[in-house]
């Protein structure tokens, strides 16, 4: 799943698709945390807590990212990342 997300992030040009890929990657990482928590340290809750926070932050991040995307879309009518490079340097 992480690799899929990576692939998507690297190849897609639509910003929302990239965001989707990003979510995939996040999820993969979350899952990792949880699984390791479960298998290696049963009884501890660090992994879970971490995931919990990660989900929270992911939600925040997505919301913000989408806000930005919408804003960009409004101003340039395009969400193709290749063409959004005016803020370089």
């Amino acid at each position, binding site marked *: 799943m992480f690799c899929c997300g*990576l692939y998507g992030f690297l190849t897609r040009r639509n910003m929302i698709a990239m965001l989707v890929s990003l979510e995939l990657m996040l999820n993969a990482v979350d899952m990792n945390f949880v699984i390791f928590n479960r298998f290696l340290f049963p009884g501890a809750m660090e992994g879970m807590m971490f995931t919990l926070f990660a989900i929270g932050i992911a939600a925040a991040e997505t919301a913000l990212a989408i806000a930005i995307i919408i804003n960009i879309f409004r101003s340039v009518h395009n969400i193709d990342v*290749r063409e959004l*490079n*005016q*803020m*370089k340097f």
Partner: protein
Amino acid sequence: MSVTIPILILAIPLFMFIFLGLCGKKMSHLLAGTLGTLGMGTVLVLAYYTAFNYFFSGQACFINEAGERLQHVIFNTTWLQFTDSLVIKLGFLLDPISAMMLVVITTISFMVHLYSLGYMRDHHGVFEKGFQRFYAFLSLFSFSMLGLVVATNIFQMYIFWELVGASSYLLIGFYYTKPSAVSASKKAFIVTRFADLGFLIGILTLSYYTGTFNFTDLTSVPVEGLADTFRVDLSTPETVLAGISSGAAPIFMGASVLTWALVLIFVGGMGKSAMLPLHIWLPDAMEGPTPVSALIHAATMVVAGVYLVARLFPLYLMENSALVIVTVVGAITAFYAAVVACTQVDIKRVLAFSTISQIAFMMVSLGVARPEYHEGLGYMASMFHLFTHAMFKALLFLGAGALIHAIGSNDYTEMHGLRKYMPITHWTFLIGCLAIAGIIPFSGFFSKDEILSAAGNYSVWVYIWMSLVAFMTAFYMFRLYYLIFWWKEHTVREGHHAPHDQPWTMSVPLIILAAITCVAGFIPFGNLVSWNGEPYDFMAHFDWSIATVSLIVAVAAILLATVMYRKENKLPAKMKNAMPALWRWAFHRFYWDELYMFITHKIIFGCVCRPLAWFDRHIIDGTMDSFAIVTNKASNAIKPLQSGQVQMYVWLYLIGALLLGGITILCLI
């Protein structure tokens, strides 16, 4: 002797310079000129007083019981202290030659000041632009020259030597709107500066070994038995430095350090005295106003080199090879200048080359002087010739100035047959010519005769060579004389006044100088000036055979000139066509100027300066800039990485992560 008068001798000209330089513009031309002349007149009186006091008062500080004249330092104040022993002092040294020079300089300078009052205005009596400046510079020059001759130490001499050079620069370039004058002044300064470099290094070497700059210390070294070791001044023990204690006298490139030092100092003298090959500035220096030429470039400054050698003569005696060099340089220069003088058309240039030739005479005379021959006759002869030459050459120059003033040109082809129009000039000029040719009652005869006699004592070949030069001297001077005053009748061009004699301010100096020229030969010069201060009666040594021979030589030369140039004829043209190559080379002064032009412009400027400047701008600066360029390029090269393409960043991140992961794995395996 009181200090006041010597100080005044130096201070009045300096004050006049500052005063005229700062306030000159505010006063009228005539006032400035009169002030300058009066100032110089005062100095003249004071200098005469000082000199007569020195020679004839018989005070114990000037002359001892044995009748030897002594060096007397009147005052000496510290100006700059380098080390305990090396101190530049400014002072006033009286000895026979400085007293003699005081007389010469003040006389000529006063004549020139007076003469310029008439010369520096046009026929309607309107003063030239910058007249006040001219007098300021003249005063500066007089100050520097007086300071030079009374120097108590070699560094004071160097200081005034430089000042003399600078005032000469200013005076040659007086007509600063004329490009030729500007370049002539530049040339004069740079050539003499180059020579001064030698002088400076010579001074440094000499002072390092002797630990003193003082003439009195330098020349008081015992003279006997100094074939090859360089004695240091034993009066200051700490000057016996490590080099001396190491045993043998230090040898540098095959010659002793003393030789080097003396030759280098002589190079300085060569520059100022326009010896070959550093003579090229003097003919060009004739671009200056003619009184300046008379004062600086004939009578006073150019003999500074001779004076320098004479001043250090006891040191030169210690080193035979240095004196031989002086002789050889002098002899070659004398001959060269005489040949060139035979072909020039500009009357001032003829006089300039004749000056070079005559100064070379003095140099030869110093070079051949040895205590064992007639008790150093050459030294006395040289100084005597310096004295007489200053007078008659100033006379000739001022006469030439009168001609130029009347005609408005330097070229004798526009003169011809002026004897009827300008009688005073004619007669005084003739006296000058007779004197320089060496005809009997005139001063030049005596001094030149003694030089030849000294040369004859030293070596027959030098004698014959110098007699040849004397022959040519008489020839070209009378060539000049005839071409100006005879040759053919003067034609007054339309719209011009007929040339006429000059106002009294110009005539009086001519007449005075002519009078001095007539009688100066009878001054018992040997009693006053000799190499070691002992009086020397030259009449006792007078060699009538040499005198007769030189007289015959001179008369023959004059006769030849009379035949060729008395009346307009074809003989000179024939001679010229008979040996065209020689004539052309001589006319172009043997292409020395071109050679120097080539060296300075092509070699120094073209092959050193320009490449260096290019090197600086492109290599050195290029390297520095290339640091900046490389930094810039590097940042430009990595700038695209910040492309704004998020995916590119991720790629880079991924690659990095993969690499790290890969490395970790490899390490773990």
